[in-house]
C-alpha cells in the first residue's frame, strides 16, 4: 500500500527544493497540488527567456514549451497543477478552501509570503489544528540574513561547502550544479513525515521551519565541529592516496580511483605497474604516497589514459579497489545498475510524450512508493480542483472562470 494515501498536500513552491519535497510525499501516495502563478511562472518551466531547444523533447519547444521542460517535468510527477492568481479574491478563495481540505502546506518562497497571503500557520491552524505547514527559506525565518534570496549555488556557498571544493588556489566550486536543492527537498520531506507521525498519534499539526542552508550544514557536521578551515585541494584527501579522477580513453572521459589502505594500494599498484610498483618505496605507505602524490597520479594517469573508463572501474572493483567511471547524464540514462534497481519509470505526458523518468531511491517491502503519472501541464488540475475537490456549483465555477482567477497559459516572458 502507499503510505500517504489519503494525505493531501498543497505546494506553494517553485524551482527544485520545494517541488522535490512535494514529489517525495506524492511518491508515497499523497495527493499533491502544485499551485502556480499565471504571471510569475515557475522558473523550472523556463517561460522567461527565449525557448532553448536543449530543454525540450526532441529539441522541439512545441506549442506549449512550458509543459515540455525537462526541469519541471522531472520534479512534479504524480502531482496536479492549479494555476491561480492569488491577488484575485476568487482565486485566493479557491486556494484557501483547498488548504482547508488539506493536510500539508509547503512553501519555499522567502519569509513573510504566507503571512502576507493570510496563509500562515498561525492563521490557518485556528480552524484547522491538524494542518502541517513547512516553510523552506534559504536562511531561515529570523536573523539578519533572513530576507536574502538564494538559489542552490549561492546556498552551497553560504553553507560553507563551496569554499572546501576547488582546485588548489582556485575559486570555490559549486556541486552539480546545485546540490542544496535536493538536500533541502529531502530535509523538508523528512520533517513533514516526522510531523505526520506525530499527528497520527495526537491529531496535532504544527509549523516547521526548514532553513535550507542550515539543513545542508548537517552534511559537513564534523568539519563544523572541528572549526578549522579546509582549503580546497582538488580531489586529494589527507587520509587517502591515491584519490583522484584520472583521464581515460575519449574526450573528457574520466575514472575515479581511491586506494583507501596500503592493502588496496598493493592491489592497485600491482594492476598498474606489477611487482616493481608494488615495492616502489615512494608509494609503499600512505605517508610516502602523500609525499609523492604528483608522481603517483602521473603513474596512474599513464595507465588509465588509453583504457575505457567503465572497463577500468569494473576491473578494479573486481580486484577490490574502489573505482567508478565518472558518469555522464547519458550514462545514467542507460545505466544497467539504475535500471536493475528500478530507478526509471516509463510515463506518458500528454504534451511531452512517452519517456523514462528518473525516480527516487526509497525501497520497501510494505511501503513502496512509485511514479504513477507524469508531471502536470500548466493548469491541468484547475477543473479537477473546482469540481472534484471543492465540489463547487456550476454557477460558482462559471463566476470564478469569468473573473480570470485561473489560467492554463502563462503570461509571456514571466
Amino acid at each position, binding site marked *: 500500500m502507499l*503510505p*500517504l494515501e489519503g494525505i493531501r498536500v498543497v505546494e506553494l513552491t517553485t524551482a527544485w527544493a520545494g517541488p522535490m519535497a512535494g514529489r517525495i510525499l506524492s511518491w508515497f501516495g499523497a495527493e499533491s497540488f502544485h499551485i502556480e502563478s499565471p504571471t510569475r511562472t515557475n522558473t523550472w518551466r523556463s517561460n522567461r527567456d527565449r525557448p532553448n531547444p536543449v530543454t525540450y523533447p526532441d529539441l522541439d519547444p512545441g506549442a506549449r514549451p512550458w509543459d515540455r521542460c*525537462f526541469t519541471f517535468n522531472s520534479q512534479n510527477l504524480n502531482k496536479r497543477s492549479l494555476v491561480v492568481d492569488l491577488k484575485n479574491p476568487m482565486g485566493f478563495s479557491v486556494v484557501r478552501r483547498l488548504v482547508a481540505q488539506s493536510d500539508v502546506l509547503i512553501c519555499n518562497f522567502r519569509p513573510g509570503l504566507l503571512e502576507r497571503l493570510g496563509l500562515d500557520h498561525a492563521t490557518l491552524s485556528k480552524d484547522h489544528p491538524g494542518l502541517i505547514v*513547512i516553510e523552506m527559506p534559504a*536562511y*531561515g525565518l529570523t*536573523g*539578519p*540574513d533572513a530576507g*536574502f*534570496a538564494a538559489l542552490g*549555488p549561492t546556498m552551497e*556557498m553560504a553553507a*560553507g*561547502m*563551496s*569554499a572546501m*571544493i*576547488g*582546485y588548489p588556489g*582556485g*575559486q570555490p*566550486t*559549486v556541486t*552539480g550544479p546545485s546540490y542544496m536543492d535536493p*538536500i533541502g527537498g529531502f530535509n523538508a520531506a*523528512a520533517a513533514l513525515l516526522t*510531523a*505526520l507521525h506525530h499527528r497520527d498519534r495526537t491529531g496535532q499539526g504544527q509549523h516547521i521551519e526548514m532553513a535550507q542552508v*542550515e*539543513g545542508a550544514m*548537517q*552534511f*559537513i*557536521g*564534523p*568539519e*563544523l*565541529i572541528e572549526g578549522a578551515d*579546509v582549503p580546497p585541494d582538488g580531489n586529494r584527501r589527507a587520509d587517502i592516496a591515491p*584519490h583522484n*579522477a584520472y*583521464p581515460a580513453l575519449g574526450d573528457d572521459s574520466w575514472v575515479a580511483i581511491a586506494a583507501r589502505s596500503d592493502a588496496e594500494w598493493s592491489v592497485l599498484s600491482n594492476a598498474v605497474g606489477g611487482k616493481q610498483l608494488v615495492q616502489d618505496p615512494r608509494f609503499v605507505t600512505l605517508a610516502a604516497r602523500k609525499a609523492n602524490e604528483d608522481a603517483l597520479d602521473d603513474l596512474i594517469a599513464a595507465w588509465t589514459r588509453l583504457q575505457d573508463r567503465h572497463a577500468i572501474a569494473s576491473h578494479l*572493483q573486481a580486484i577490490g579497489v*574502489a*573505482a*567508478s567511471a565518472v*558518469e*555522464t*547524464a*547519458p550514462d545514467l*540514462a542507460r545505466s544497467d*545498475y539504475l535500471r536493475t534497481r528500478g530507478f526509471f519509470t516509463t510515463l506518458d505526458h500528454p504534451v511531452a510524450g512517452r519517456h523514462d523518468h528518473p*525516480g527516487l*531511491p526509497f*525501497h*520497501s*517491502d*510494505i*511501503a513502496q512508493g512509485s511514479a504513477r503519472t507524469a508531471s502536470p501541464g500548466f493548469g491541468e488540475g484547475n477543473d479537477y480542483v473546482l469540481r472534484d475537490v471543492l465540489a463547487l456549483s456550476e454557477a460558482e465555477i462559471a463566476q470564478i472562470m469569468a473573473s480570470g482567477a485561473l489560467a492554463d497559459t502563462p503570461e509571456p516572458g514571466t
Partner: protein
Amino acid sequence: MITALDGLVVHDRSGSIAGQFCGKLLCDFGAEVWLETGSDHSDIAAGGTGDRSTALDLHLNLGKRLGSPPGPPDVVICGPADDADELRRNQPAVLVVCISGFGATGPKAGWLAPEIVLQAASGMMISNGTRGKEPLYGTGNRASYAAGQAAYIQIMASLRVRAQTGQGDCIRIDAAETAAAMCFPYALQAIYNGTDRRRGDQDIPAGQVLCRGSWVCLWIYSNRFPALCRSLALDHCLTDPRFAEAHERQNHWPAFFALVQEKVDQHDPDAFVADLQGMSIIAARAYRISELRASQHLAARGYWRPVTIGQETFVLPGPPFRMAVTPAREPKDKAHAAT
C-alpha cells in the same frame, strides 16, 4: 518536552556514516537509539578513528545509548554482517534497514563505495570544476549523509504502514542510487533529446568575484542586470554589444565578471552581498568554516549547540529543521554514548 518519535526504539548496528546519520536523525527527534559497536569501539563509524569524542562521533552519535536495547527494537539499522532476512524472520514487526553503496544485487552489487566513487557514479561529478581539468568530487561524505537521510524518510513512511497493518519491513537504500536521484535532472534531459551537459556548459547567469578576502557568488537575472551595472559604475556595459542583450551576455559572462572584479576587489564581502541583495540580486559569500562559526546571522538564530563532555566544550551544528511542537532534543538533554 514532547518529541515526535517518543517511544520508538532503534538498534543502530550499522557502523557506517550513512547508518549512524540515519540513527542520529531518529535520536534527535526523540527515538531511543542504541549504538552497537565492536568491543574496542574501532568501528564506531566508518571513517572514524575509534576515538569516541572525535567530531565525527559527536556529530553522529551524541545522545545514543551504548549497546543493545533490552527489548525488541522497532527499527534495526543493519551492519554489513547482518542478515536482513533472518532479522525479519525472528522479529516480524521490526523495520530492518539496509544501507549500502551499490546494493546487494545487480550489476554493481558489492562495489566499494567511498565518497569519490559515489559522486562519480551519480552523474554529479562530471559537472564540477573546469572543463579541461579533472572533475571534482566535492568534499566530505555528503553522499553517505544523503543515504542516511533517505533511510530516515523511508522509515517514517514505513512506520505509517506498520501502524495500520502491524507488518515489519525491509528497507533498502543504495547510496549510489540516492546520489543519482539528487543529481540535477540532466538524465531526463539526455532522455528527452540526447544532451550531454558537463562542467562549464551550464548556461546560467552566474559568476564569482573575489572581494576583500572572500569570494562572492552572484546570480544575475536579466531584469537585474541594469541595476548591477549602474551600482558599479559599469553603465557602459548596458550598451556594449557583448552584454546588452541577454542571449549575447550568455556568451560573455567571463568578460563581464572580469569588469566586475576590477570594481570590487576591495569591497567588504558581507557588505557587498547585502548591497546586492538590497537590489534583489541573488548573491552569497563563500564562507569558510571559521567564518561560519563567527556568523552573526547563525548566532542570532541560536544555531550552534554547545555541549560539554568531560572538561571539553564542543560546538555542534543545529538541527536540520525546527519543529514548533516537537523540536529536536537539545544536546544538554542527552547522554553521550561514551559516558
